């Protein structure tokens, strides 16, 4: 279920309520995005060695203090990649050519749909891991904080992401399809605090898309 409030937030409404015309357009776009999306994800689970400043898992050596802190006490990690598929890119491309107002709404709807899908995937993973007495840490993505975006290529190769879910990189290490996410999730027998952090923790408090409260 796509969260309407999130869509409105992505459209830059900052807590204001859209006009009925825009609300109607959002509903139309939700239908079209749902029809165009073929959400897919791939996960692989690896034993991990976490030091103060690096994480070794899946044959990769990831240098990042913040990731290492996020994965403190984790003996295993999950490599995760998810995408809404190329159909959503096509839809966006179509309206960029034909009707930009709709493209803007499709983009917001797709962003919200991607978030929803990742959360669903995470819940499934959490359920499965709970059976083993393991807790799942929040998703941490290549490019966040001090984890270089440069790891994206090897990360996707480990997941065979092109073959399995169709994610490829441009020369500038941007993922295609556009609505794609990669992340690392730690598994640990130690429960940490609130596991789902959102944009509220970001230091850019003046952002037009900041979630209220």
């Amino acid at each position, binding site marked *: 279920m796509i969260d309407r409030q999130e869509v409105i937030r992505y459209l830059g409404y900052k807590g204001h309520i859209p006009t009925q015309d825009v609300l109607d357009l959002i509903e139309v776009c939700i239908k079209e995005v749902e029809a165009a999306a073929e959400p897919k994800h791939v996960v692989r689970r690896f034993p991990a060695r976490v030091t103060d400043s690096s994480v070794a898992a*899946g044959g990769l050596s990831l240098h990042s203090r913040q990731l290492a802190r996020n994965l403190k006490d984790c003996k295993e990690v999950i490599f995760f990649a998810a995408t809404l598929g190329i159909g959503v890119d096509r839809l966006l491309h179509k309206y960029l050519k034909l009707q930009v107002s709709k493209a*803007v709404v499709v983009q917001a709807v797709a962003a919200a749909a991607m978030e929803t899908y990742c959360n669903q995937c995470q819940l499934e993973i959490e359920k499965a891991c709970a059976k083993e007495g393991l807790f799942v840490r929040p998703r941490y993505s290549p490019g966040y904080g001090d984890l270089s975006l440069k790891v994206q290529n090897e990360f996707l190769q480990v997941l065979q992401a092109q073959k399995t879910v169709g994610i490829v990189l441009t020369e500038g290490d941007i993922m295609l399809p556009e609505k794609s996410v990669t992340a690392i999730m730690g598994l640990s027998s130690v429960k940490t605090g609130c596991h789902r952090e959102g944009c509220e923790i970001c230091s850019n408090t003046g952002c037009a898309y900041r979630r209220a409260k």
Partner: protein
Amino acid sequence: MKFQELLGKRILFLDGGMGTLLQERGLMPGELPETWNLTKPEAVKEIHKAYLEAGADIILANTFGANGLKFADKVGEIVAAGVQNAKAAVAECGKEALVALDMGPTGKLLKPMGTLDFEDAVTLYKEVAAAGEKAGADLIVIETMSDTYELKAAVLAAKEATNLPVIATVIFGENEKMLTGATPEAVVALLEGLRVDAIGMNCGLGPEQMKPIFAKMAACASVPLVISPNAGLPRTENGRTVFDVTPEAFAEDMAELVGMGAWIAGGCCGTTPAHIKALVDKCRDIEPQALTEKELTVVSSYSHAVVLGEKPVIIGERINPTGKSKFKQALREHNIQYILEEGSRQVDAGAHILDVNVGLPEIDEPTMMKEVVYELQSILDTPLQIDTTNMAAMEQAMRIYNGKPMVNSVNGKKEVMQEVFPLVKKYGGAVVALCLDENGIPDTVEGRLAIAESIYKTAAEYGISRKDIVVDALTMTMSTDDYAAQVTLDAVKAITSQGGRTVLGVSNISFGLPQRELINAAFYTLALQAGLSAGIINPNAKAMMQAYDAYLVLGGYDTQCMQYVEKYAVAQATAPAAASITPTRLSLKECIIKGFKEQTAKVSKEMLSEKTPLELINEELVPALDVVGQGFEKGTLFLPQLLMSAEAAKAGFEVLKEFMQQSGQEESKKMTVVLATVKGDIHDIGKNIVKVLLENYAYDVIDLGKDVPPETIVDEVIKTKAPLAGLSALMTTTVASMEETIRLLHEKAPCCKVVVGGAVLTKEYSDSIGADYYAKDAMQTVHFAEEVYKSFIN
């Protein structure tokens, strides 16, 4: 021993998985497997030998990921070593087996969704194919493809660079589609059209899950089929990918798939020499199923196939400048959006295929045709009919078309057939065959059938079968001949009764008569009743669609009249309601502020009887835009509304523009602005928003698109003497190329100011990379443009 001589005599066996076996021998994650061709040839040969011992007839060289993107100038050496290792393994085993050059995906996504140009992809594959043939490969296997467009590039490359036989297989998901959306029927249409020697599926699924999809391929393919499943669906165990299907279970399922028609069988991920041995033991003695010609007339897009000869098909005729002054103008002004909108409207109205004709004496038709086909297929999934007499335009469009096109047309003239049929043979296509020749159009049924027959015969000489010929019996006008319709209809009937496919351009029947739709719709119904496979019509014409919908009911194509009831019962129920909610007349300004596009166009037209276009612009349109612009900046009105108003205003401007042109007035533009999303960046939504707004404020916007190299932007600015360039970048990683573009612009075109925008930019950041102005949103770009314009005119 040659591939073609063996094919069909007995079941041929491919080898199994390579990647996991290399990993067992020490290949590290992230290490490119093909490097082992040079560094550890013995390990690679060992795997080949194990498959040869297991009974493989064809082994795939370790060249799957070898291409110029990954290996640069080493690619030839890597490929040659890969083929030579495989050949050495065959020799050392003392077995008779063939070595295939293996070609997989490039690892990049093709334009327009991705960044790799189609012809660049062809070039990359050609390099590999040529190196493979030179090193002695017996055939080429293109496999694990998940995008039809890249698949087409690979096949064309293999055929153009070598004389080797080609096998091509793709990945389907459990949703029975490729990742980029193609159905099995669409894949078969594309690959048969490209004359691939054997086609099929590999990877992605296990043999069990492949069965329903393979059955669909077998139901429509007339060429040999190939199947190479994974050993089931993968799962991870202690960080390792494992596949659960045992060799015995694998062979069991494969025997069933071979029974369904596979001539070539092997394995993909997770399969081992043990799987291949079990497969060979189980299936060696099975007789290959006889090939049957399926007689299906099919065209396809990147997503689906359309069959002619079953339910009647609608070909939309509106992308054609003949008799349309606005369309001609759009072509002259290079207004691609106008053409795309024309296409989109027809698809919404029910067209199954779109005819594309962009011929105009004063334009470069091949370039325009190629561009229009490329753009149309990027926004619509409807198969296209390439309609031109310009052979260069036909070839370029067929080449870059993502599927098997319909081609319009060939006729009984020898020289025309000599030009068109080689293209159809090479690129695939169902071709419209007009019943006319050097002696003109026969006025008898027999005369037209004779020409159809001669076209069929000549096509066969090129290896093009009857199923790919769609006969146009030609619609002549009633106003010159009372029996025109009868001759055409009788010809359609005769061709249909002989199992042929037919097409007609319907509307010519009423040329010169009043109320043409009456005649057109009645003639259309009669033609459908005569067996017409496809009508080239205007799907926006209500009477034509009503005739079509009614015929589907009467012809038994609309099960329980469901589609008819849905369309017409609903239409009747909502029609009065729609009328009653029509708001009271708003002023033009109000229409724009509210973002009512249709109404804006309507009111603009009405108000032209009271005021001049210039008065309307100054008193209504511009003030309305200012109101929404200010609302947006104050935070009382938001982006979707701003854009809806901008689009409404655009509809108003279009009306005024047409009026001015009819009265011989020139539309005045302020100045040229060049827009681009910089090299490396593919997110261009922000740039497109800016474009719409600048156009509203009468700027002549040149949109260079996304992923644009600095040099291209500079060249365009110099060429057009644009006083302003707008650049967008979304990612921190691409701001560097924005900086480079600004530097180059300031150096080569110092008079041009540069405005930048994008999610990661700030005022400080944009200052540091040398931009003249930072726009935090689209309205600020407009303000800056107005500033530049003021100094530009002074």
